[in-house]
């Protein structure tokens, strides 16, 4: 565990709430509005931690544990990402499985907390969340398999680190497909358009927002920050595939990563401005499409 890696992690952690901020700002500007400030999420978080909490009488400790587990699992998952382009604070063979497992652990806790309220709205959101995740997770692993084929390494530090830079000249086409597939996954896993609309106001049409309907105060702050962090982590995956930073010095690599995250955020905002949300029954098709892209990425490398 290197100090540089932890500093990079700290920087990414502090800047995470900017990513959804930039996406929202992009969408506002493109649709002819001024929009909320880019720093809005920071203000919201600061406001929420100072508030009290309201707990439903139906809930148990599972509801209280939800936000805590979501955030803790995402922070541990961040330890596996090579933010400086070379190596992560924690790396071992097969840590991709641990990364996916931690994302799943966060989802498990979040969805159970939603069900703990006994509300049919939250049950509906939970059902949709796990349905979409069932299609997203195999796609994520297809991307990992393509990266294993390209780099021969079983850890995220290798897949997204030095061996990846060496693999680009050989397997550029394949890696581009993987990057696009990961971007679609980013949209789906983080409840963005075209899978979910973070700006919707009708409970019946929500997915992520409706699961957290009963969370308030600091609990909601943990969840909002967790969502921003998850978006950032998937953004790091996308940026790392497209821009191998192994050749750069540590600070330069982190700077490139932050610039890349800003580009991803703008791209998310552009997608939200130019297309409508898909019908819920079409979402699996979108994700199977992303899986097919990753599969092409694999086929291109099998010889």
């Amino acid at each position: 565990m290197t100090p540089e890696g932890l500093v990079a992690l700290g920087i990414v952690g502090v800047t995470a709430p900017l990513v959804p901020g930039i996406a929202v700002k992009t969408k506002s500007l493109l649709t002819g509005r001024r929009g909320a400030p880019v720093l809005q999420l920071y203000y919201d978080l600061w406001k929420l931690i100072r508030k009290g909490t309201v707990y439903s009488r139906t809930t148990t400790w599972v509801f209280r544990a939800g936000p805590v587990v979501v955030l803790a699992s995402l922070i541990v998952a961040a330890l596996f990402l090579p933010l400086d382009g070379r190596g992560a604070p924690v790396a071992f063979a097969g840590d991709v499985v641990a990364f996916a497992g931690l994302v799943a652990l966060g989802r498990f806790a979040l969805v159970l907390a939603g069900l703990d309220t006994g509300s049919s709205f939250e049950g509906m959101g939970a059902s949709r969340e796990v349905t979409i995740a069932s299609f997203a997770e195999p796609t994520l692993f297809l991307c990992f398999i393509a990266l294993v084929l390209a780099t021969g390494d079983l850890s995220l530090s290798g897949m997204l680190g030095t061996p990846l830079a060496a693999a680009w000249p050989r397997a550029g086409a394949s890696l581009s497909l993987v990057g696009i597939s990961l971007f679609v996954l980013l949209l789906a896993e983080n409840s963005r358009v075209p899978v979910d609309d973070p700006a919707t106001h009708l409970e019946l049409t929500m997915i992520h927002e409706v699961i957290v309907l009963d969370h308030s105060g600091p609990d909601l702050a943990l969840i909002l920050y967790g969502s921003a962090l998850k978006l950032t982590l998937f953004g790091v995956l996308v940026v790392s595939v497209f821009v191998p930073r192994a050749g750069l010095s540590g600070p330069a690599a982190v700077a490139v990563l932050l610039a890349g995250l800003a580009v991803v955020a703008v791209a998310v905002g552009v997608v939200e401005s130019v297309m409508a949300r898909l019908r819920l029954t079409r979402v699996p098709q979108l994700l199977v499409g992303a899986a097919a892209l990753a599969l092409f990425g694999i086929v291109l490398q099998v010889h």
Partner: protein
Amino acid sequence: MTWLGISLVLIVMGGVSAAALSRRPALGEMLFRLLFGAGCLTGAALALAVLAGAAVPDASLPAAAPFGAWVFGLDSLSAVFLLAILSVGAACAFYGLTYLAHQRGHRAIGAAHLLLALLVTALALAVAARAAVPFLIAWEGMAVAAYFLVVLEHERPEVRRAGMIYVVATHVGTLTLFALFASWAAGTGDLSFAGLAAHPPFSTGRTGMLLVLALVAFGLKAGAVPFHFWLPEAHAAAPAHVSALMSGIVIKMGVYGLMRVVVLFGPPPPWWGWVVLALGACSGVLGVVWALAQHDIKRLLAFHSVENIGIILLGIGAGALGMAYGHPVIAVLGFAGAALHTFNHALFKSLLFLGAGSVIHATGTRDVDRLGGLARRMPITAAAFLIGAAAIVGLPPLNGFVSEWVVYQALLRGASTGDAMQVAGLAAAALALIGALALACFVKVVGALFLGTARDSVADAAREPARGMLRPQVGLAVACVVIGLSPIAVVPPALRVGSLVAGLPSGAAGGGLQIDAAAGPATVFALALAVGLLAAWTLRGAFGRRQRRLEAATWGCGYARPSPRMAYTASSFAAPLLGAFRSVAGVRPDHTPTTFATHVIDPVLDRAILPAWHGVRTAATRLRPIQRGGLSQYLLYVVAAVVTVLLYLLVAGRHP
């Protein structure tokens, strides 16, 4: 081996004392507890010693036995199964003492305890047998004991039906095993495992026949798709602690059989590895999709056993392919992952069945759609069940994650080999699909049983069961957590099992190969995650004490009079996923404008086996006229048969 003998004798004596002292149940059950517990401890200590590297010499039965020597032995493969049998067996037996206690008046529960002891003994003998004949005897003893336990509540017609399906399926498997061993030893006549292992090279056709027979026989026992049809019926019909033992242990004997066949046969041809891998992927995905469709909690858990057998078969398939294509590291990792997942699944699946048993005991219903909110009435059961659910889904830092991670490693390493094995890497995506669907299913179960509000009044009177039923659950939950936190302690023995199955020289883990399975860093990760979760929980609690807290009703989006009937049902929860998989899900949705329900059918049992069976019965009815019961008619048949034989000898048979 003497210690194993002592252990099994103690277990049987425990069972006998429970049955013989049924007039004085307190004394009988105390003796059962003592003897059974002591027997399990003795045997488990022996198994642990073998897993740690101790060698145990084989033992032969001294008297002249039919069909060659009866040899018994313990290697690391047997030991890992023995450990699972004895630890889960003890948990289930102790749970059963309390679970069956209220039926003492009208059922011979002492006999049920004896049968359970006999089942555990037969299981232990099956993994210790080193010759075909004692193996088959133990195998049959296991099937018969399990049958009588399944039909314990025989007054219910569905239990009798399940028992019949089970007994037919298991005997088809046993007959296939007879064929397997007979044709394997056809050249030499030596039925000991050592003799089978020293077989001369088989022809391609003979190899194919043997390996297919092994797949059918052991696949039937394991409940792999398409041989799973008996499993949900039998496991749902049995009492909870028997379901736990059957789902946790008995079906694993199929896994043991497959791995033992690989040990004895040597490197299988590539096609066999591909078939096992494909069966694993099908069992995994279909098992979990069918589980999603269930409303009956025990049937649901039973289908998850099909799913987990799929995961184990993915490991065995990766191992067999690694052997066939000459990648020993992948072979060891695949078999090690399969062995470890077998053990872990034994722990968390029996935990889940025992939890389900407590819920059924407390509420009297198995229908998940009627339950809810039990976490407040049964907090310990709920917490243990939640741990089991997170473990079976494969979430870190629990034991299911550790074994799935080893299987993933085998598959992902397969992807980077650069030969035909690369295609096996795609199975990692199937494993991810299985994991995500399992998460959906267990969110549904935990949510429907323990969270929210009950849609029915059955849950109103529910309360925590007696300590005799809680302790086994807590013990199993603790085991799940401990294994999850210590990959460094469990992965090396699993690798030793893997190298034994992969045919590498035993001894050191990996058999001289340097396998960096990264168990050390994984342990650091698991501990760090556990510490992180605890720290976050403590911090949140400390912070929460300083802030204002209010209690209110759940936000109903402005609706002022929410009722429990409005809670989302488990069927509705699963509906979107079942819609996406409707072509294979075996679900008939049934909705009117105001109601929604799903009906479940088993595609294999209801669409293939039962129609085929009815066809056979119709055909048999046509034959009935020849058997009318008249003596003169039968004498005519005898004369006709003798004449036919004489004619045959006259025409064709110069040889007698």
